[in-house]
């Protein structure tokens, strides 16, 4: 059997295949070891880190919904210092490119995190800016204020690093095409589309929300058509690399995103159900390419036919 060339390049970085994991769905240090050989992944995207540790939200934090789940974890993480002390040495042993996802409350936070992380060029290959977590409200910041912060955060991070800078977006902040244009202008090299969509579920016996935070981020197959539409529209309008996320459960899902133009595929919630989802998807993509005589994934990427 002929090998299929799955190599994907973004801003001088080479990924041996397009399969990665969505932030917050793959743990921090080897939770999936034994199920997945991390070296086989195209890239690893970490759970969001913040400057200071965050305790996270009260319970319950998750609930199942039709074809998906809601979560309101609240960016629980041990903070930047712990990441540098414990996680960087762990990932230094894995050759797979690491993309570190960061979040902050101000552009200063994004700058500080980026500055600290870019001191580890052998490990941290890219920074993903979480500009769209639906479960963290800072004093009820208004819509326009959030948009302003978003642009300022991208500019602040850009000023600190030449490395691949990815902005993770959500339709919650307004028209995605408009936001995409704004963050590209502010200096983002690539976009992650999409973060979870804010939703809720009510227990009719207690009349309370099934999530302590009341609302949570919806993920899973339920949001895939929405994510696919945004990836398609953004790729149609901008020459920008896109990391697609949103309900990628199988190779078929992944292939739809590739045909729509996605550069990388972030497998998220699927990991929770099938710990080997990433590698199953990778094998499925390879199988499809062989069946269809596709030698390079690049031939398939963005090959959507309008008629």
């Amino acid at each position, binding site marked *: 059997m002929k090998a299929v060339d799955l190599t994907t390049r973004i801003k001088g970085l080479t990924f041996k295949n397009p399969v990665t994991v969505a932030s917050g769905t793959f743990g921090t240090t080897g939770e999936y070891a034994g*199920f997945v050989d991390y070296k086989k992944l195209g890239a690893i995207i970490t759970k969001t880190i913040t400057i200071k540790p965050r305790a996270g939200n009260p319970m319950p934090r998750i609930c199942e919904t039709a074809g998906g789940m809601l979560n309101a974890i609240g960016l629980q993480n041990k903070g930047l210092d712990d990441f540098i002390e414990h996680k960087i040495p762990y990932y230094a042993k894995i050759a797979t490119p690491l993309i570190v996802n960061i979040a902050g409350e101000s552009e200063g936070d994004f700058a500080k995190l980026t500055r600290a992380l870019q001191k580890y060029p052998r490990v941290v290959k890219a920074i993903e800016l979480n500009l769209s977590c639906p479960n963290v409200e800072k004093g009820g910041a208004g819509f326009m204020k959030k948009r302003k912060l978003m642009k300022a955060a991208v500019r602040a991070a850009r000023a600190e690093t030449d490395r691949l800078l990815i902005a993770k977006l959500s339709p919650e902040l307004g028209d995605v095409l408009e936001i995409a244009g704004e963050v590209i202008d502010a200096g983002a090299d690539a976009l992650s589309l999409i973060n979870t969509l804010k939703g809720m579920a009510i227990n009719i016996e207690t009349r309370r929300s099934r999530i302590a935070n009341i609302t949570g981020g919806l993920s*899973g197959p339920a949001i895939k058509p929405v994510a696919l539409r945004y990836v398609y529209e953004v790729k149609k309008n901008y020459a920008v690399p896109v990391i697609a996320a949103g309900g990628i459960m199988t190779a078929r899902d992944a292939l739809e995103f590739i045909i729509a133009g996605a550069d990388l595929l972030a497998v998220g919630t699927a990991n929770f159900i099938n*710990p080997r989802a990433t590698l199953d998807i990778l094998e499925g993509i390879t199988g499809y390419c062989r069946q269809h005589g596709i030698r390079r994934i690049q031939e398939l990427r963005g090959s959507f036919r309008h008629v």
Partner: protein
Amino acid sequence: MKRVDETVTIQENSRINGKYYKLVFKSGRLARGVQAGQFLHVQIRPEAVDPFLRRPFSYYRIQKDRIEVLYEVLGRGTELLAELGSGSRLKIMGPLGKAFTRKVKGRKRVLVAGGVGVPPLVFLAEKNPVDYLLIGTKSKAEVLPKNELSKVSAKILHATNDGSYGTRGFVTALLEKIIQKEGAERLYIQTCGPTPMMNAVMDIARREGIPGEASMEESMACGVGACLGCMVKTPQGWVASCIEGPVFPFNDLVRTCA
């Protein structure tokens, strides 16, 4: 202990009394080295998205590569599981989580069980020296058939809410009697069951200064410590019950609800 994820074929899946269903399948890898308190993470319909998430179940009994699980039908997932017949396939991850302490020195061991907490504590009592097994249920129809308890050497006491079997009232009343009889300083408690029951047990244990462990139950997604959904509050903050638990020493738990 190596965690595995494999497809198994159901051998038996049927109702055994007014409360529990028994699921039986074979898997050498899922049975190897398992201790009471650990759990399996089951994808009930492997090719479907309904139910979407896996469901965690305690191990109940292991005989070589034969694994038994007792479950209650409590929601959409277990309703669908109960419909499956022998020959149906499940995807199962395991063994997951931390087990109950097996060796307790210098103290008499009391197990306090209710509802879905009965199976792992029967497992513990079958495999280890245990002095008392206290089981709380609503009524006689929910009490495990005698043959299911025949391998337990501990003294078994039942409490039912309606008094139709054993003592009338809550299982905690049985615990209070044993404390009076044996003395708190001579006891060690291990508990698993509905949260209000475990909270009541832990309140008594704290009042009396009795050490022990509780197996916590939270909604769970990944089962491997990645999603941070199944959190339990400890003095050090929220920790994932799927990897740090589900069994925790009483001292590691902070009461979070009334």
